[in-house]
């Protein structure tokens, strides 16, 4: 039994949607990061699916670029979270309210 490509695309779209929804609604910076990672991985699934259905190796190599970028993002992001956490002992973005207006 072969699973049609569209199923993978729908799965990716759902994952992306869940990630985007999470970034917009969750209040913990760490969970927001995880949601961004989920979005990037949904993109990877999309690229691989299209690459497979078009028999084009290009789309599969892009996944490596996205993975490297995701790793670099996490490194920088966690560094910033640590910097904030040192001052506040909380990663909830609700408490970040020095800048408003």
């Amino acid at each position, binding site marked *: 039994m072969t699973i049609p490509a569209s199923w993978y695309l729908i799965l990716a779209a759902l994952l*992306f949607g869940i990630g985007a929804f999470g970034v917009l609604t969750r209040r913990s910076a760490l969970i927001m990061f995880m949601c961004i990672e989920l979005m990037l991985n949904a993109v990877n699934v999309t690229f691989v699916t*299209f690459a497979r259905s078009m028999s084009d190796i*290009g789309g599969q190599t892009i996944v490596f670029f*996205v993975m490297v970028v995701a790793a*670099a993002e996490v490194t920088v992001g966690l560094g910033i979270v640590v*910097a904030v956490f040192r001052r506040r002992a909380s990663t909830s973005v609700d408490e970040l309210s020095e*800048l408003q207006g």
Partner: protein
Amino acid sequence: MIATAGTLHVSIHYLVILPVLILFGASLVLLIASAMWRRTVPTAVTTATTLAASLAVLVVTYFQWRCLDKSGPSSTVAHAVVLDGFSVVATAVIALSVAMAALVAHDWAVRENVRGAEYSILALASSAGAVLMTQANDLVVIFLGLEILSLGLYVLVAIDRRKGESAEAALKYFILGGFASAIFIYGAALVYGATGSTNISSVSYFLGSNVVLHPGLLYAGGALLLVGFAFKIAAVPFHMWSPDVYEGAPTPVTGFMASIVKVGAFAALIRVMISGLGTQLATWRPIFWVLIILTTVGGALLALPQRNAKRLLAYSSINHAGFILVGVWAGTVLGNAATLFYLATYAPTVVATFAIVTLMGGLGDERHSLESYRGLARRQPWLGASLAVLLLSQLGAPLTAGFYAKYSVLAAAVDSGGVALALVALLSAAIAASFYLRWTVVLYAEPDDEIDVSRVVVPRGTALVIGVGVGLTLLLGVWPGPLAALAQHATVYFTP
């Protein structure tokens, strides 16, 4: 690209990627130097390296321009990177902004006693990303450029570890920036699915010669790409991060960010919208139309109640982003040239403006209320007059560079049939004029005796930056001809 057994031959025209190599190489050299040096690398060394790298890039752009004159635009590295007039001029603008911002940051670091090579390392790496964005001819390369640019900036925003609001701004910037990047690359994936390539010329060629089987996929992809860009250029309604980040970041970083992000992101936006999706002009224009009206009018209205200089400039930059979008909306060679002219004049103006704001911030970088500017032009006529000129240029007053910049984008829009759009943009400029003029009036107002009126020390490097910014603003204001001609000549490599 020809692959044979075990080896991979990619022809690379090194002159094209030399600016990226220089900037990134200088960043790496400083990174290694700071690891090898027994103590922290002196700020003078790091600033000198940054200046040397950006001047080297300026020299390289001259040779690139000569190469263009001889053999015309071309693409290299498997058509992922292009050499065209547009990228060369944008690269030169970025190099100039990097050099100016480095001088401001140097004097700031000396004043605030911030040591180490971090600023220079990150600024050079970020600018390499911005240059890559101006040259990218592939959605994935644009994504990489965007990330290289942004990752450096996230850290730069938090570079002053003593300030809590800087870390807070960095976190906000990071989360929304990462969100925008993910949206952008998802857009790239959908465009890839619809057209079979992420290469911008191939996408355009495909769209020009085929009937798209899945137009929904293409439209969704294009829309997501646009949302990603809108976040980066801070177009309303994707602008929420911008005032917080502008306020929270150390002021020299704000100036740096305001200039190079705009240049890099708009260059890539033109590449995607005009080169890549130019055949779909009729589809994306109405979306741009709404975006421009929201951005110009929204930016101007939201700036009105601001009493903090940095937040005010953040909203003003949103208004400017709207104006630059007008040039993109035109979708013509004229529009591209107008956009390039606008970017080339806006970048030095905004760096010089933030240079003055840095000075006025005083030790601790905290005095940013508009009230602290009261009577500045009476105490220090040169500094006050410089700021007045820079503000008037952002307003678009005649005899300053901003006037011709605004005029040229609006003329390009009218030429493409956007009279209503031009009128709305003009209206927003009129609203924006009120806060620029209010600030200018404060500069020349009677000083308030109760407020501390200590003279602002102007270090030599920052004075040079302000001088260059004001000089360019006035020179291009009375004599825009040569740069406008250059921008006209600096065509985009691939237009369908």
